[in-house]
Every structure is written in structure tokens, then in C-alpha cells.
């Protein structure tokens, strides 16, 4: 038994027949080949799989593909436009906000949502804003700098 979904991913309309149990992250990665969205846990804590669903951050490992029916999904691959990096991406690059890079796409998508809601966050607001995203490499300090740089851009 499969279900039909229509979803806009990075501005492109997609239609698919999916198993009802298929996770959104597997749909993005395996069906669409958008492997920039990563899977770092199975309990919805780490945030590596964060994407934007209708403009708000969502953990795509905790959402079924069928729940995204009719939604607009933005992944890390959809962030740069016409070869121009998004200011959040620039911030991460300039401030050394990443090391191994595995948490980075999810972290960047969470930061997109954070800055959308709060364009000039304090350090504490940034810290709590990225609490749903784990990073094992950076100690978060340069991520905070990256967010601050992006907020100023």
C-alpha cells in the first residue's frame, strides 16, 4: 500500500508514491538524492536532519514523507541561489563554524529559522536557538560567531 504525495522541494514540484512509513529524510536522501541532509540519531535529538518545512525548521527524521504532502521543503542544497552563498553559509565559512561538517547542514537550516524569527539574537538567544542541534567538533563557539556574522550581513 503506497500513498501519493506532492511536495515542493527547493522550489521544484515533486510527486511520488511512497510507503506510509517512509521518513521524510529518507525520501529526500534516497528518492531525490538530496544527501546534504544527514541522519545523526534515531531519537530526534541531534538535529543533523533539520530542513525547513513551510519555512520553519523541522527534523526530517521525525516526520513521515506523507506528512510533507502539499508542503514546501527547503534543504541545504536549496539555500544558495545563483551560485551566491546564503549569508548563514558565508558566516559558517568565514568564522570556522564547522569542522567535520556532518552537523552543518542541519545547523545552518536551524539558524535560518532562528534568524528569520529573531534577526538580531543575543549570544544566549543563539545558544538556546541551536540547542536542538548537536555539534561534537566546534564546541559551538564559532557557530555562535557565524550566526552573529550572518545576522550582521
Amino acid at each position, binding site marked *: 500500500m503506497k500513498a501519493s504525495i506532492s511536495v515542493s522541494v527547493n522550489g521544484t514540484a515533486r510527486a511520488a508514491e511512497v*510507503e506510509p*512509513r*517512509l521518513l521524510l529524510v529518507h525520501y529526500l*536522501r534516497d528518492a531525490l*538524492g*538530496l*544527501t*546534504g*541532509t*544527514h*541522519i*545523526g*540519531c*534515531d*531519537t530526534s*535529538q*541531534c538535529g*543533523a536532519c533539520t530542513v525547513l518545512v513551510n519555512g520553519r525548521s523541522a527534523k526530517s527524521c521525525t516526520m513521515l514523507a506523507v506528512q510533507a504532502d502539499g508542503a514546501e521543503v527547503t*534543504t*541545504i*542544497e536549496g*539555500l*544558495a541561489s545563483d551560485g551566491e*552563498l546564503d549569508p548563514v*553559509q558565508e558566516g*559558517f*565559512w*568565514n568564522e*570556522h563554524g*564547522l*569542522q*567535520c*561538517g*556532518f*552537523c*552543518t*547542514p542541519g545547523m*545552518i537550516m536551524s539558524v535560518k529559522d532562528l534568524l528569520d524569527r529573531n534577526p538580531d539574537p543575543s*549570544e*544566549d538567544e*543563539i*545558544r*538556546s536557538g*541551536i*540547542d536542538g542541534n*548537536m*555539534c*561534537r*567538533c*566546534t*564546541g*559551538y*563557539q*564559532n*557557530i*555562535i560567531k557565524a550566526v552573529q556574522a550572518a545576522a550582521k550581513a
Partner: protein
Amino acid sequence: MAVSRMVGARVRRKEDPRLITGAGTYVDDVRRVDMAYLELVRSPYAHARINSIDVSAARDMDGVIDVFVWDDIKDDIGPIPIDAAPSPDMLKPWRQALASGKARLLGDAVAAVVAEDRYVARDAAEAVEVDYEPLDAVVDIEAAIEEGAPLIWEDLGSNMAFRLEPGSEDIDDALAEADNVFSFRYVNQRLIPNPMETRGVVVEPEGGGGLTMWTSTQIPHMLKDRLAAALSIPSNQVRVIAPEVGGGFGCKLNVYPEEYCTALAALRSNRPVKWIEDRSESFLATTHGRGQVNYIDVGVNNDGKVLAIKTKIIADLGAYYQILTAAVPTLSQLMMTGPYDIKAASSELICVFTNKAPTDAYRGAGRPEATYFLERALDQTAQKLGMDPAEIRRRNLIPADQFPYAAPSGVEYDSGDHVTALDKAMEAIDYEGFRREQAAAAEEGRYLGIGLSSYTEICGFGPSNTLGMACWESGTVKIDRAGKVTVLTGASPHGQGQETSFAQLVADDLGVPFDDVIVLHGDTTIVPYGVGTFGSRATVVGGTALRMSTDKVIEKAKLVASHLLEAAPEDMVFQNGAVHVRGAPTQRKTLAEIAEEAHEFQNIPRGVGVEPGLEATSIYDPDAYTFPFGTHIVTVEVDVETGKVSLTRYVAVDDCGKVINPMLVDGQRHGGIVQGIGQALFEGAVYDEDGQLLSGSFMDYAMPIASELVWMETDRTETPTPANPLGIKGIGEAGTIAAAPAVVNAVVDALGSLGIEDIDMPLSPQNVWHAIQSAANGA
């Protein structure tokens, strides 16, 4: 030598454009045509006899390609290798790719299922029926070696894997000479490394019986050799690729059963096969770190001078050896006197099997454990003597004029200026000012504390001969016909940024633009044999190999230029990316011009001993270890009602010798410090008496998150090492080594007035609250 432009500069990373756009390829992003998926059936018991395994239901499911257990593969695969053998008498149980007869840890893999997709593979794994007979589990490491403890390896007759006797016979005499002897016990709890990318493997069979493996590893070449040997495939037909690797921290410095099983699955089905570790699975199946109980006797005079220490380390190996399991605790022994001039020291090491995941390297690997027991013991000693903790350190730190310094452990420290680092950290945090603030706060009933940690660490592995394993590194520098530079390194960076720092180094050495240099790594077919990235060694050892190669390339360029410029080779001068005739700077050829001529090879006379091309490969095996050092100081406030610890300031002064890219160095320190804070405050593998892992997911295992942390104020001193021509000591592990004792010292300092002398890590609100209650109740 070119004018230095890049080395020492804050240069943003070459790695990042692909990583910030989602274009990086990690193992799970590798897709091959007709790829199948592997799932492992894992024991739900820490210790159980396996009476039978029925795979028939799984095998009959639609979409299932293969199901195998140990009996199906035992003739096709060797054991998991053990590289470290610190004792000739050590018990040597061998780990199989799949357990049979007994499961010896929670999550021990007992059967493998291969299916058309990962959902079906999961369903089929659940359909495998295993009849287990649960046995008493060995969990506590001190109980494990008591008489009558259940045996994990019955045929070996003991849970004690090996014991190394104390080195010094005279230690008791040395202790007796001191005014005081204080005895302490500390616990370095088990930690779970948890890189954000779990492990994963893809194997594709190649024609002729070979295979290609993509795996999330720190050691592609070491793995290739061991994989080929275990599978009896000629090693030149095995290709291992470490693609983008999402963090390692030591737990990917290994050879795992899943790598063997995925390879077998691919060979058996003649299809590409992928295995990706779930996070919950990773908590069980990937190596853990730390896991030591430490006893230390401190012989100290009334003036604070430490004369002798006697230590006993009981180390939790887990159920099996992985490749460096047995070596890690020996690093604790090597570092037992840390940065202090303590003339007499002895160490006894007892290594114990338990029904838990194998321990192995985890960022710092043995050195954080030693630093923890030593720094805690110094604080407690100071407290007993009524001395300030900064003062006892100052009185015992090795003076700068004592280097090179022969430590009682037998290693020689290369260089250091420890007192300067301590002074700098104390000034940065305003130590005296904080003490006044602390006293004022105490008047208001607030509990503020300050903690110091001075450390040194042994890094830059090899030398191969004293280390007991090949630990050199290769470096290739190739200038192509168009003058572009390709660097190959045997190191296998996975976040550290050597694509950038090595390009800085080579660009400066050759006097070519940074953008003209690319660095390749991690593919055994592309990169000459190398050992890998761990132990803060990649830049120290791999960087030096590259310096040797740029030197050779420059010599070759001079030789080629001498023929082009029709002058004697000894009159060639290399400067700013070009060779000119001494005294005639206009008679010059750029490196790009020389490279083109060296490749075209039409203007080079015959018979002059010059080969076409412009490249060199070098291998560097260090003659000596390096010893980074520094002092970290942290301040905290403790809420005694809830037990919650808040970090208020963190100052780190580290000395890693010369620095190629300060931005990368700071990044390493930030991450390392937070992992140390994680041990001090949050993390711990908690097992119940049956060996069930209670902290087996991110819901229960508290990883450091941004809101629990504090801004890290970083400064450095710079004491070059004479051990290598770059003067580099290494920085990857410093933060993790220094941070945990500094934080615990600060919390105990805050609570000293309540009569608390020690609290075991992690200093979670619950543990701190209990310590406060126990002290209040006089327990």
C-alpha cells in the same frame, strides 16, 4: 625560502564550500548500482549463551538476499586484529566478526541480514530467532577480578587481561621521605565518543576477487592491510576510501566486525552492500573511551613540594580487544607525572575484561585520565596542606631551563615553559580578583569556585620503534605540467582541516599561490601508504613529511633550472617560487616554467641524471615525541539547592609549538575543551548490574549543548619543539586533556566550605546534590 605568507595566517578552509552546501559525500551518501543493505542482529543481553539461531523466517522474506551467522563465514574471515600488546603475558581472546557460542556484550552481533532495501533488512533482522540463555554479567571493574566473578572468557581462566607491575621498586622509600603521604581514589567514567556521523560501510566487489570499501575511518591504509589479511585477498586488490568522515575522536581508529561483515556480504552476494550504523546501535557497537579507576599516593613535603607519587590504574577493557584497547591505559602511565618535576613515580596497571563495549582511543586516549587523577590529587593535596592550588602547581612545575626533561616514566619531554603558561592563565582570569569575588559571594550565601589544570601530553606519534607500531607518515608533492600542485598525505583528516593547513605549508615552501594547491587524502589507491589521523599527530608527522618533499622538489627544480639556464647547479637560488642564477636575478625560471620543461623534457640534455616530472614522496618517522602543554582555569557557580553547576568563565592557555593556522588551532581547542567539559559535567556510560546500557541514546546520554556552555577565552604561548623541523607539537587533544580536571577542581573549590573534598564525574545536578546532602548529613 619564500617569504612566509600563509603559514601562521588565519586562512578560511578549502574544505568548507562543499560542506556548507550539502555537496560533501559521507559514506551514507555513497550509492552504487544494485546496492543491497546489511542489518545486524544484536544481542539484547550483555552476557548470554547462544543456544541456537534460527534464520529461516528471515531468509524466506521477500527482498532478503542473504542471511549468515558465524558458522557460515568462519572459514572465510580472520579475527579482528589486535595491534597493541603491551604485555607478553596478556590474555589474548580473539574477536570474531560475528559472535558464536556466547554474546559477551550488549549489542554483540550474532547474525547478518542482507536485503534489497534498508527497511526490509530491518524487518528481516527482527525475524531472526535467537535462543539466548542469560548469564551473570561482569560490569564493575573492581568486582570483575574478585574471586568467584563470572568469567567472560572461560577458557582463559580470568577476567584480568594483563597486569603491568610498578616500574620503581624504591617508591615506598621515596614516599616515606616526604613529610606527608596522602591517598586518593578517582574514577574516570566510561564515555561514548559519539561523532555526529555514526560509522558506516559500503563495499563493492571488484572483478578478480578484489573489493572497494568506503568506510568512515581515521585509518584507511591500516584498515586495508588488516582487511586484506583477514579475507585472504591480495592487499593490492583491496581499496579503502575514507570519504568525508563526520568526526572520529578515536572511535574510528579501528577495524570493526561490521567492516568485515559488510565485505563478506558483498563478496557472498556479488553485489555492492551498504551498512549504516544507527545511533542507538552506535552506543553499543562502537568503542568507548576512558573507564578507569585510579589510586594515587602523593608524597609531599609541608612546603608543597611533591617528592613521589605511587599510582595504580585499573582499566576497563570491555569484552574484547580492538586494535589499541590494550595500549590506551599505558599512555596514562607515561603521563603520570604530567608537567611536574616529581623525581619518583611508579605505576601499576591492571587491565580487566567486562561485559561492555571495548574501550579504545577517545580524544586524549589515556592522557586525560592521568591528567585527571594528577590534577585532582594536587588540588586535594593543596587543600590538606592549606595551600593555594595555584601555588602548589607553581612549586612543582618543571622549570623552563630543565628541558629536555627526563620524566620518571622513561620518556623525555622535548621543550616547555609551564610557569609562563600558568602565569598567563592566572592573569587572564584575574585569579586574585576572583578569590576576592568568591569571598564576597560567600558572604551572600553563593558558591563560587575556581579550578586550575596544568597539563602536558605526549603527541606526535611515532617514533615507530619505541611505540611498537608503524607510526610514520607519507607526504607527496606533485607539480604538474601546468604548475598546479597536488599534495597527497597519508594522514586522514576528518574535520581537522589539513586540506587547508597543508596547502598553506606547501604554498609557502614552494612560493606558489595557495589556490594552486590541493590536498588529497583517504584513498588507498591514490595516496601512498600512511598511518592516519589520531593522537594529535597528523600535522606534526604528516606536515614534516611534506616539508621533506617540498625540499626535494625544490632541489629537483634547481637541477632542471640549471640546465635551462645553463649554469652550475650549485649556483641556483630558489626564491619566491622561482629559481635564478646566483648574482643574476633576471636569469630565472618560475616553478611553473620549470614544471612544464620537466614534463616536456625536450630541453634537458641526456645523461645528466634528471628524471622527467617534478614530484617527490617522503616518509617521516619521528625521532622523538612532542609534548604540548598549558594551563586552563575555569570559574563556576554552584546552585546548592539544585546541584546545578554553571560555568562562568573559561580561560585556556595552550602551547602547541609553532602554528600553521591559528583559526584551526582555536577550533581544535574549542571542541576539545567542550568534550572535556562533557566528561566533567554531563556524560557517562551508565550500565545496570545486568550490563544493560541505561544511557543508550541521546535522550539519556547528555551530550554538551550550546546553552550549557561558556565562552572560551583562548590564548597561547609558543615554545617550538626541536623534535621536528616545523617546530609543531600538535593540538587535537589538549582541550579534552585539560578541561575535565579544571572543571571538577572548580566545583569542589566552590563547595569546599560544605566539607566536600571530591565528587565523581559527571557532576550532574543529581550527583552534586547528593554530594551536598551527604556532606550535610556527615556521611
